């Protein structure tokens, strides 16, 4: 079974980012609710009931924005009641709720994005931009960890040598500075060895290639193409204004034409791609396993 995790990171990143971006640039409530539901369902599918606090966001954010927006926003015509001589309008409440849903949806998508895109996948994506940058990134990640380790070692060594006096703040700060400065010499010293090791293995002898752990299978290509197709459709239609909504001064009813339906359907398909994938894989796995 090939979970969404194991798909090509580029295809996954394109799908997740496009879904999130469209959510950011659209104010159609139906589309936003769809987006939030799909995002939550995907998150639930991956994490189950863990992260309870995060689930509370889905309800909490729309509620919070709905309550707060009218306090600042005096637009709208249908006044419900007054607080401190300020009008609380139906439009402002509605707009606040929609904004809250939008924010919650985007948060969910990015949470899934950061869960899925571990450092080696980001590294894979970085290679598309620049293989050299990717190598530097990889070396930096490694060196930061080494730095922290060595700093700890030096501090322990100095402590066990009895170099720090009895509880003495200035002494401690000075000790810290010394440790930091020697850490720099240590890093330079080690850098020379690493550089030799790189040169010995042919670094800089010509054009490099880049090894990756991920390849393109048919599924990945399909995922990428579908993502582009669905998001392209949705974006074009949104740009044409089919999902345009006005909340102020009065909430305009949506125009449920062919354009509206196509855009929402295309977006729904895009947002549900991860779940559809997982569902399909689970089904195949179930069938295969029952034949074992």
């Amino acid at each position, binding site marked *: 079974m090939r979970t969404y995790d194991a798909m090509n990171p580029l295809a996954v990143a394109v799908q997740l980012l496009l879904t999130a971006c469209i959510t950011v640039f659209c104010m159609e409530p139906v589309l936003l609710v769809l987006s939030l539901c799909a995002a939550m369902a995907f998150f639930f599918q991956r994490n189950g009931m863990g992260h309870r606090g995060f689930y509370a966001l889905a309800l909490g954010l729309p509620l919070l924005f709905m309550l707060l927006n009218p306090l600042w926003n005096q637009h709208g015509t249908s006044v419900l009641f007054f607080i401190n001589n300020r009008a609380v309008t139906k439009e402002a409440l509605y707009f606040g709720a929609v904004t809250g849903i939008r924010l919650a949806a985007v948060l969910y998508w990015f949470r899934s994005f950061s869960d899925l895109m571990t*450092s*080696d996948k980001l590294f894979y994506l970085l290679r598309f931009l620049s293989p050299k940058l990717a*190598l530097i990134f*990889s*070396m930096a*990640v*490694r060196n930061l*960890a*080494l730095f922290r*380790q*060595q700093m700890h*070692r*030096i501090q*322990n*060594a*100095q*402590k*066990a*040598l*009895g*170099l*720090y*006096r*009895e*509880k003495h703040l200035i002494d401690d700060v000075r000790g810290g500075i*010394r*440790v930091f*400065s*020697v850490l720099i*010499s*240590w890093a330079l*010293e*080690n850098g020379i*060895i*690493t550089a*030799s*090791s*790189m*040169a*010995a*293995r*042919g*670094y*800089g*002898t*010509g*054009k*490099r*290639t*880049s*090894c*990756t*752990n991920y390849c393109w299978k048919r599924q990945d290509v399909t995922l990428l193409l579908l993502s582009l197709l669905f998001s392209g459709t949705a974006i074009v239609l949104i740009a044409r204004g089919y999902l345009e909504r006005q909340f102020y001064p009065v909430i305009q009813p949506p125009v449920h034409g062919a354009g509206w339906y196509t855009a929402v359907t295309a977006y729904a398909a895009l947002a549900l791609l991860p779940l559809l994938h997982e569902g399909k894989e689970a089904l195949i796995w179930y069938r295969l396993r029952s034949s074992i």
Partner: protein
Amino acid sequence: MVSLAVEHLTVTYPECAEPVLRDVNLTLETGDFAVICGPTGCGKTTLLRMMKRELTPLCTQSGTVSFEGTPLPALNARTSAAQIGFVMQQPEQQIVTDKVWHELAFGLENLGTPQDVMRRRIAEIASYFGMEPLLERDPSSLSGGQKQMLNLASVMIMQPRLLLLDEPTAQLDPIAAADFLTTLLRLNQDFSVTILLAEHRLEEVIPRAGRLILMGQGTVTHSGRPAEILAQLPPDAPVMAGMPAAVRLYHAAGGTGECPLSVNDARTKFMPLYAQNVRALPEPEPRPHTAPALRFKEVFFRYERHGRDILADLSFTAETGELFCIVGGNGAGKSTVLSVIAGLRRAYAGKIEIFGRKIQDYKGRSLHQECVTLLPQDVQTVFLKNTVAEELAEISKAYAEELRGFPFDLEPLMQQHPYDLSGGQQQLAALAKVMLTHPRLLLLDEPTKGLDANAKEQLAEVLHGLQAQGVTILLVTHDIEFAACHADRCGFLSRGEMISADIPSHFFAENAFYTTAASRISRGFYDRAVTVAQTAGLCRINGLKAAAGEEARDAGHPL
């Protein structure tokens, strides 16, 4: 076919009057397994680096180095990088990337290898080196031995025909080192890779090497089959101290017959030549008992609440003025013992007394002030300044005065940067720094790691000097030869418990597996001979068996 030819190579570093290599001539045939050894500073590293174009130091050189008939400068850059592999001493610093699979790929990426070829080669090499479970790991989470194996694998993945190794096992524990050397031999046997290995851990290498190259002061002094070279070497040659126990025994006992290289050789061919009238040397005077400096009583320690016990029911006593060695395998808890004594970690149960006072009673930092000092394994972490003199002055302005009794002359090192010193010099400079804090109990973690035999002797001398000043020394080591020669008592730590503690001649005589090479050689022939000196002493006392003496005389060997 000639793999590597060095002809009349003379190398001088800038601003140095004397050349570091002087008219070196050397030829390696394809498939040779050659070991190169010599004292620190004899030019081994320079010679190895002259054979790898990418690492050639800045210098003036005359003479040529050629690889398979082509002079190095004329080699194509990628051919040179791929076909001559180089592995250095430091396991950690040679690693470039943050994933094992990526580290393996690094060399191939540099050569512009296509993706599918890389994937296949990584799979191949990972399977040959048994690294498949590690591929997704971060190299910094590997053990030292695994790291060095990764360095070897990421050179081998480029399919080199010549492999140069500069003290690759110096930083490894004995088991990892043996694994590494076995892998080298396997590579040599399986693929006829030509191997040139600079080493000072010679016990296992020499018996299996096809060629031995001895260097001294910038020249190759001897080159040929190990047994032949070692038989004719004068017993007081500087490289002798690092040779396998069998070779040292052969020379110390007077050198009769063929020179044995391994324990097996020595037991089957050498020891039977000697009579066994006197089975054991007289027992040494027992060391008079002194007040305990350190007492562990049923101490327990673990790193995590739900983890396993690293120290479990540990009880032992070290007496004032004693040199106590703790030996044991990897993960036995040796270093943990030291960090518990040094107050870096706290035992959760049991009693630890240092000079009669409970460790908890040393409030604040009073434990480290003039009482307990720990010299860590990575001795570089001790240094903070730009010169050795500044390091020492940091602790005490009158360091010259205070170090008058220090059994090693530090004067030539004073103006050097601590990182520029050799491993042995670093150890001694760090010891000097430590001594300025006037510890009464000195804790040393693997002080002989990476040192050659002569540096170890120097270290031992310094330690005995400190003992004479009344310092108690607790030393943790893998180096059982060092423990056997220099400890007053040895303790065997296994799974966090002190299994046995005794004077070396009893301790190692009773162990059958975890014991010195000399003890394994003399076992059954003599009793309680655990060092080369003791065994050789018994050989000399007993003399050759009459028949053996005649045989040797007939064969024309000197007696």
